[in-house]
């Protein structure tokens, strides 16, 4: 039973991971030169100075606000939700057809890049600005609804002890499968199989726990896109459209559970390890130090171990920073309360680093489906007249990419620092406590930011 559930988790995760793209040698490669030392230094220093400025200049206590300040609320016309839902399910079935009946060479079949690059990279960044789209588009959810109507179940509630653990397990399985398994499963037919299997799992989950309960806790896509979307100024939810200040929800809302924060740090760690595993440092450790210390570990096993350990180390450091802030301020608030309250401030760092890491890959690979979509089944069609489009994998030079990477990381850091700070002025009541509570967070965030820049700067 145990091995069976593991294999289901492994296969289900196959399409889920984001770092996979860069490592799958077969269909993607990054062409950026390492960040020069000067960029690294400027980035680190400006991140540090900016967070100091935020903390020391704007630390007047404010009343804890009730919820996010919503600027505009509009009723979402039912037609919009319906259109999104039908587009999602229609596109999913069309792509499924192309995956099954099209060429099995990734460079002749658009499915591969539409899934990995358009959905898992491109759509992720759409969520930074407009959140909530996935809940309508999600084909797995639409299927679960249809099946639910045919065979009504009486679901029990979602077990609270399970939390977001299924998402983390799926994410871990998927990342290790891809990053540390020498590249596997990039065939369209495999994606199609995974799609169907995952739809099946979602149906069992929905039947057992209820559709919303399942998708909001255990569906990787929903949890991942929703997390990225917590920053977004525009948000679609059920029958409403809300416009708020960007980042408003990150300030106003607490993370519901600690394992959700752990998931954010899994994303950060997976991106960091994807960057690290191509560096000289990693090679040195794997090919010299491990044998030298007499640790007979296969590089892939070592990678998986790191993927399992690093997020917990990041999480430990975060708890340590919060605990230090708590000790310095001598507050009566519990550690658990503070850990949950400040958890969302890490989201901008994880998303910005993710973007900095995948940006150069995205701008090249995103074009691949353009010519392929005109002839998805390799029948000599030219449906959209784009068949002759020539993909330019290097549209931007290394120096432009450096500026974008640096800008994204520093901006993400500043947004994170501002958000943590805005939470602090609502949590603590004296100026002294606000500043003291933020000093350990400042050190932690500068550490995450410097680590990200350092990895980008490795040869």
């Amino acid at each position: 039973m145990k091995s069976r559930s593991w294999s289901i988790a492994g296969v289900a995760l196959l399409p889920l991971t984001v770092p996979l793209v860069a490592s799958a040698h077969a269909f993607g490669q990054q062409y950026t030169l390492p960040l020069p030392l000067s960029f690294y230094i400027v980035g680190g220093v400006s991140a540090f100075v900016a967070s100091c400025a935020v903390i020391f200049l704007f630390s007047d206590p404010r009343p804890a606000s009730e919820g996010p300040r919503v600027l505009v609320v509009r009723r979402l016309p039912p037609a919009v939700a319906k259109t999104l839902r039908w587009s999602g399910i229609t596109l999913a079935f069309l792509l499924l057809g192309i995956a099954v009946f099209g060429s099995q060479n990734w460079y002749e079949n658009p499915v591969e890049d539409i899934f990995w690059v358009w959905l898992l990279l491109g759509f992720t960044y759409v969520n930074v600005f407009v959140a909530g789209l996935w809940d309508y588009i999600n084909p797995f959810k639409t299927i679960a609804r249809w099946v639910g109507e045919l065979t009504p179940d009486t679901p029990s509630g979602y077990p609270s002890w399970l939390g977001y653990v299924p998402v983390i397990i799926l994410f871990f399985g998927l990342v290790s499968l891809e990053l540390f398994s020498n590249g596997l499963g990039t065939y369209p037919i495999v994606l199609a199989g995974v799609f169907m299997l995952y739809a099946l799992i979602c149906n069992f989950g929905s039947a057992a726990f209820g559709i919303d309960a399942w998708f909001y806790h255990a569906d990787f896509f929903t949890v991942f896109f929703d997390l990225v979307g917590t920053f977004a100024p525009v948000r679609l939810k059920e029958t409403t459209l809300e416009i708020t200040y960007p980042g408003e929800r990150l300030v106003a809302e607490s993370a519901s559970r600690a394992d959700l924060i752990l998931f954010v740090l899994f994303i950060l760690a997976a991106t960091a390890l994807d960057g690290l595993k191509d560096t000289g440092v990693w090679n040195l450790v794997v090919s010299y130090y491990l044998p030298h210390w007499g640790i007979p570990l296969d590089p892939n096993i070592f990678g998986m171990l790191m993927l399992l350990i690093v997020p917990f180390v990041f999480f430990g450091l975060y708890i340590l920073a919060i605990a230090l802030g708590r000790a310095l301020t001598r507050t009566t608030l519990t550690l658990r309360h503070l850990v949950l309250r400040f958890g969302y401030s890490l989201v901008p760092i994880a998303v910005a680093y993710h973007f900095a890491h995948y940006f150069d890959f995205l701008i090249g690979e995103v074009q691949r489906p353009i010519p392929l979509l005109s002839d998805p089944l390799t029948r000599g069609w030219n449906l959209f007249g784009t068949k002759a489009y020539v993909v330019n994998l290097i549209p931007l030079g290394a120096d432009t990419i450096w500026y974008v990477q640096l800008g994204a990381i520093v901006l993400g850091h500043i947004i994170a620092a501002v958000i943590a700070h805005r939470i602090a002025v609502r949590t603590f009541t004296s100026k002294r406590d606000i500043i003291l509570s933020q000093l350990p967070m400042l050190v932690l965030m500068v550490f995450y930011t410097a680590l990200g820049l350092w990895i980008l700067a490795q040869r």
Partner: protein
Amino acid sequence: MNKYTVLGVVIIVGVIGGVYFLRPASSTTGSAQSTTPQTDQFDVVVQQRKVVGGQALFTAKQGDTVSITITADESDELHLHGYDKHVDFSTSTPATLTFVADQSGRFPFEMEGSKTDLGELDVLP
């Protein structure tokens, strides 16, 4: 002093300082040597799917004309990623890939058929 003034000064100094500090990184590499494009000739010798003398690490300057010549003990295709250039070679005839390196970045090249990594070409901006 008003705190917004302080913040404004910090930002202005930061941006000017940052731009000043970053500027050399993207311009001195060229002026230190020469700004006129050169022709760079690189050779790779492959025996039993290994590059003789280890993996090749070539460095060129953006705008240079780059030639990579491969001599191998088998027949295959040389593929330079990113630029997506291909050339066939065989045991008897070495092959040369010549192109203008008009975009900067790090570009791996390999023997396409056997997926043998041969090395990387760095084109500096």
